[in-house]
């Protein structure tokens, strides 16, 4: 038993206060999974915190070293289960780089549209659950209504609602049906109107602004120290987006989109509200990308011809190594693979964005209040499946 630090509040020695140790999680409504945070509380104010991860560790990277390259794709689905398409994409690009092949043009555009749709779905979850963290339950249901449409759209080519396994090394698994593009465009029109509703309901709510502005300020130094990415990084005013700066898919070079960054609208740059607002605007940028993608998408094959044999005989890349990083909804997702010529990689490593974003939690929490802790964890938008892998 660790002795609790006791100190007296005033001259009277018969009245003393103790620091309270509060266990936030692993079974807690707002730790977004099985995160455990050990808080030291002085009344409502947090004086120290220690986050504890690993409750969802499934040895994903080790599994990758024991299955074939194609077989590992579904495992990447289960890392960041809210953005499966983006995970598939990063893995497929890594394997393609190792093999030295490139997906056909139509597949590249399809990959981009699917990844952006999934980015919207992922940000919708972030938006909805953030509302619940702050205490507003209704945005969650609004967000899930639109997410449902996205899941239906992605289900049509992939057959799955959440863990798609759709983007595979060499292309995408199968082509979309003829009405799909029109339905995606129709969804874009609906979504723009609904997005305005979200802002009326939550974004511009005074209580919401009071709860999130000037809370959990992430400075640029903290971003660089922790390797944070995605909206957490851009919320601090750093204009860096792999889609724009290191286009890992050709279509990203050809479409126009902005990179929203935090501006400190309601207080300090890099507070919870900035991160939230970056996410909201990224959804609209994704809609812009999807619209252009649907118009410009060429016809043709969706799977590289030479790659189709991988369904029968496992891929055997030449010895070498490859690292590819992609812009996930939560930040920079990278896969590092080393091949020795066998059917499975000798080393498989994932660099997850949630893990890096979460690593700054312990430096953000001290000095804030208990309710702010929930707001800060929510604004980092972590997925424990990917933190623990």
């Amino acid at each position: 038993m660790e002795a609790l630090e006791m100190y007296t509040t005033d001259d009277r020695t018969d009245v003393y206060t103790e620091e309270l140790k509060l266990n936030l999680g692993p079974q807690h409504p707002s730790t977004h999974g099985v995160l455990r945070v050990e808080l030291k509380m002085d009344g409502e104010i947090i004086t120290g915190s220690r986050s504890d991860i690993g409750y969802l560790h499934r040895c994903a990277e080790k599994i990758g070293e024991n299955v074939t390259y194609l077989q590992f794709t579904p495992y990447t689905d289960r890392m960041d289960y809210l953005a499966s398409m983006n995970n598939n994409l990063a893995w497929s690009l890594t394997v393609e780089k190792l093999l030295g092949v490139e997906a056909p043009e139509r597949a590249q555009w399809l990959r981009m549209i699917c990844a952006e749709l999934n980015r919207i779905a992922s940000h919708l979850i972030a938006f909805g659950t953030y509302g619940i963290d702050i205490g507003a339950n209704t945005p969650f249901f609004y967000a899930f209504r639109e997410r449902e449409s996205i899941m239906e759209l992605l289900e049509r080519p992939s057959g799955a609602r959440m863990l798609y396994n759709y983007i595979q090394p060499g292309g995408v698994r199968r082509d979309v049906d003829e009405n799909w593009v029109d339905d995606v465009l129709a969804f874009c029109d609906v979504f723009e109107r609904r997005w305005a509703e979200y802002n009326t309901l939550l974004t511009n709510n005074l209580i919401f602004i009071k709860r999130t502005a000037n809370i959990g300020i992430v400075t640029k130094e903290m971003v660089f120290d922790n390797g944070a990415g995605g909206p957490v990084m851009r919320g601090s005013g750093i204009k860096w987006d792999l889609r724009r700066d290191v286009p890992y898919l050709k279509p990203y070079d050809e479409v126009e989109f902005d990179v929203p960054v935090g501006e400190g609208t309601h207080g300090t740059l890099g507070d919870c509200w900035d991160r939230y607002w970056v996410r909201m605007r990224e959804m609209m940028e994704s809609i812009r990308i999807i619209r252009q993608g649907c118009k410009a998408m060429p016809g043709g094959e969706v799977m590289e011809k030479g790659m189709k044999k991988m369904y029968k005989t496992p891929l055997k890349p030449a010895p070498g190594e490859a690292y590819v990083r992609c812009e996930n909804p939560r930040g920079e997702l990278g896969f590092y693979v080393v091949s020795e010529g066998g059917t499975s990689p000798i080393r498989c490593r994932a660099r997850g964005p949630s893990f890096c974003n979460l690593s700054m939690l312990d430096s953000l929490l001290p000095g804030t209040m208990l309710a702010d802790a929930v707001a800060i964890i929510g604004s980092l938008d972590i997925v424990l499946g990917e933190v623990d892998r």
Partner: protein
Amino acid sequence: MDILITFFAETLGMSGVWPLSFAYATCIGSLLGFVTVYAMFAIWMERKVAAHIQQRLGPMEVGGWHGWAQSPADALKLLFKEDIIPDGANKWLFWIAPAVVFCGVFAGFIAIPFAAGVQIVDINLGVFFIIAIASIEVVGVIMAGWASNSKYSLFGAVREAAQVVSYELPSATALLAPILVVGSFKLSDFNAYQAEHGWVLFANPFMWIALLCFFIASLAGCKRAPFDLPEAESELVSGFHTEYSGMRFSFFGLEEYVSMFVVSAITATLFLGGYTLPFNLLDVGNLPAPFHLIGVAVLVVKIFAVIFVQMWLRWTLPRMRVDQVMSLGYKYLLPWGLFAVAGTAIWQVWMEG
């Protein structure tokens, strides 16, 4: 009340303390029945309101029409659930806390004038009686939070204590404004005044400020969103009733809805005309015997209108932080409440002369 005493004494030929005792027992029994039915309806209504705000349907299966039997079914389920008292809990306090919480709010009912003569006791200080007796609930909540032997419960209890005690100031201050207009603390006087002069809300412009202050403060008193900090489920799991289950848990739910009813009844009686009809279209107060019960319907409609606004806010607004709740109460509501009182006082002197 008098009718009942006469009934027991003369028709049934009772004597001594018996007529009074039986009359009280009848009143309390019927009120308990009313409260239970009302709470079930209110919980069903809350779920329906929430569902429709959230683009859902809510309960639709149990009982047939729009799931009307969902609440009775839930109550039945809670009755049969295991009564768990956690290890390390203070059994006696844990056991008695839900009762204390419920009694405090329920006692407020005896002063509410439902219609002319339909009031158990017409207390001289009726307004402050309800405010005062309802705050006994805080004691029960602190008992529950302390006895549970859980840190989340303790946090919830401390928050509740700070919040409710702070918000009694603005709510009592705001209520002084209509009291100045009517010139009485007696709840039946408000109905008489409003039958004659129209709603107190329109008596002077300051009354709107008083109503707003009281409404916001009453939300905090009932632990309704955006002031639901004591049971903030995203921070404290369930706050002070985290460890409660079964029927004891349902008493906390019951208490929330009953206190909503009581504060809405105060709002309706003090500001919105009580059981009188708008413009006194029908003089409900002076109707012959069975027809004066129309007043009950009028009051209940007004109460449910206020309750609907409470539900509407709950499913729209985010939760405030504990220091923001305090600063809202002391820095904004209390000064504005005092402003309304001062304004009303000046208005009364200058305009009414």
